[in-house]
């Protein structure tokens, strides 16, 4: 089985083996061996927790470079709604669109229609769902992967409706290839993303199908350039002359974490943001609680996508700005309504494939052997100090016991059992430093 691809990489040269990433990882997917962090790809859910805490800046998100996109004949930016709340309010959405064009995009796609279509498809699905509740949103790739890795029994609760950015990719390729006489693969649909997880959802969708998008560029990668294009009052003054892209509240409302509650009418709805909160709620669902909630919108980042790790401004400031932008927009857009009406009857909104659990656990075939291994793990765990110090290179004594039972670690890697290990750690981390002098009483 090929290892899953991930949206970031660890730079060995820069890695100082600080253990911060290992401790932050919610799925215990990192070990630190010989002073270097190593990823267990099958357990990684692309949440980016490690990326944020690395003191050496050794973990980098892999997004597209502009050079890679240049090979396409026609380049279309599909900005995440979160982009529009990043800038000072004097820089309007119109400026931001102009800024993206200034960066070399031939067009910028407002996916309000796709959002409205998806909302409608979700409502239909919730209306007709007979299986276990709650249904789970799939727009956050991290929560989808969290289900695949830690909550395999809940995969059927992931709502199998395509996400708006993917529909946008499909639609814009159809439209521009017809208008410009280009082949769909000569057109690039590039998502301007608030997080590296969306990148990976494009490179390797959880449902195993192929993405309609051709890559993603982080908001932080375009931020300074857009800002530079709108620095002077004259440049900002062009606002009046620009055609408005955003016609109604639809697009921006999606970026607030409660975005989907409004569409579900009488159905019981809940929204949860922040990975630790999502884990708590998933634990409850797995225990059989929360069955009266029909639809759960979940985002790994605090505050939703506006809190993504490739955004620039503070999450709460961004939300405040988006609320301000929303107040200036009309609630309804008749053109949008008409377009939704027309397309809803014609298109399919189902995910292209099924999301299945990811094989992460025990690969030993015989159940008896597996039980033996589990008992061995329990025996190792009982012998450990239970401090979760991490010096063995595993995030907790429990994980270390598991590694030992599975044969990927040795008991002597615990400093409590081996002076040799302590000596080795001194060499790796102190590099000849002397202890500070004792103060005399």
């Amino acid at each position, binding site marked *: 089985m090929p290892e899953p691809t991930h949206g970031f990489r660890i730079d060995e040269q820069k890695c100082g083996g600080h253990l911060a990433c290992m401790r932050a990882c919610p799925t215990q997917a990192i070990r630190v061996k010989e002073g270097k962090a190593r990823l267990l790809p099958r357990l990684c859910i692309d949440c980016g927790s490690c990326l944020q805490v690395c003191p050496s800046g050794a973990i980098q998100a892999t997004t597209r470079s502009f050079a890679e996109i240049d090979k396409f004949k026609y380049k279309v930016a599909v900005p995440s709604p979160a982009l529009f709340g990043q800038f000072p309010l004097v820089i309007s959405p119109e400026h931001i669109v102009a800024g993206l064009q200034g960066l070399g995009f031939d067009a910028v796609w407002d996916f309000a229609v796709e959002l409205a279509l998806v909302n409608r498809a979700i409502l239909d699905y919730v209306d007709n769902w007979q299986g276990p509740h709650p249904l789970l949103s799939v727009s956050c790739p991290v929560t989808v992967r969290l289900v695949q890795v830690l909550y395999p*029994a809940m995969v059927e609760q992931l709502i199998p409706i395509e996400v708006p950015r993917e529909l946008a990719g499909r639609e814009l390729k159809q439209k521009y290839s017809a208008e410009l006489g280009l082949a769909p693969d000569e057109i690039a649909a590039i998502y301007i993303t608030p997080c590296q997880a969306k990148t990976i959802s494009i490179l390797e969708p959880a449902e195993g199908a192929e993405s309609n998008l051709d890559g993603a560029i982080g908001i932080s990668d375009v931020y300074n350039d857009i800002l530079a294009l709108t620095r002077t009052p004259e440049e900002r003054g062009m606002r009046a002359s620009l055609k408005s892209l955003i016609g109604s509240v639809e697009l921006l409302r999606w970026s607030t974490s409660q975005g989907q509650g409004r569409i579900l009418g009488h159905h019981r709805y809940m929204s949860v943001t922040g990975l630790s909160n999502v884990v708590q709620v998933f634990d409850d669902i797995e*225990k*059989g*609680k929360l*069955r009266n909630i029909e639809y759960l919108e979940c985002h790994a980042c605090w505050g939703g996508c506006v809190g993504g790790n490739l955004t620039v401004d503070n999450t709460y400031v961004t939300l405040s700005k988006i609320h301000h932008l929303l107040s200036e927009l009309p609630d309804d857009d008749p053109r949008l309504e008409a377009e939704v009406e027309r397309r809803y009857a014609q298109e399919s909104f189902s995910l292209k494939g099924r999301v299945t659990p990811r094989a992460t*656990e*025990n690969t030993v075939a015989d*159940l008896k052997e597996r039980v033996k291994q589990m008992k061995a793990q329990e025996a190792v765990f009982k012998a450990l100090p239970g401090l979760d110090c991490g010096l063995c290179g595993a995030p907790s004594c429990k994980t270390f016991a598991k590694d030992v039972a599975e044969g990927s670690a040795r008991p002597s890697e615990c400093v409590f059992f081996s002076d040799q290990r302590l000596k080795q750690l001194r060499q790796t981390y102190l590099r000849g430093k002397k202890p500070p002098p004792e103060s005399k009483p």
Partner: protein
Amino acid sequence: MAEELLRKTFQVRGRDFDKAGETAAEIKQILKGLGIDSGLIHRAVVIAFEAEMNVVMYASEGTITFVLTDEDIRLEITDNGPGIENIEMALTEGFSTASDEMREMGFGFGMGLPNIRKNSDGFNIESQVGVGTTVAAMIGLDSSA
């Protein structure tokens, strides 16, 4: 004859709504660690959770015994609750003797025992009024539903 591979017994305290669900969660962790099929885990967790809730709602204490053999998963739940007068009725979907307070918390919709039976391949219940109830549920490892 099935060979017993693993046995664990959990104590459940009645009226302890705060801790309710923890036994089910532990059983899930064990089964998941063993790489048991996720569909089977789901069924076992539902059984354990419903059984745990029954103990929490009606008894002052009880035990849940989890046994894994090379052929099946077995759960046996024993409590010292009031006992069930009419077992047939108790197995009817929607029949419930839960208080309004329990319903308010999202439990007691009369799906507990029916859910346990629905998710088991083998099911047995014995109850004596004033003494307690014992429920035994079995899921075959090669079954799928």
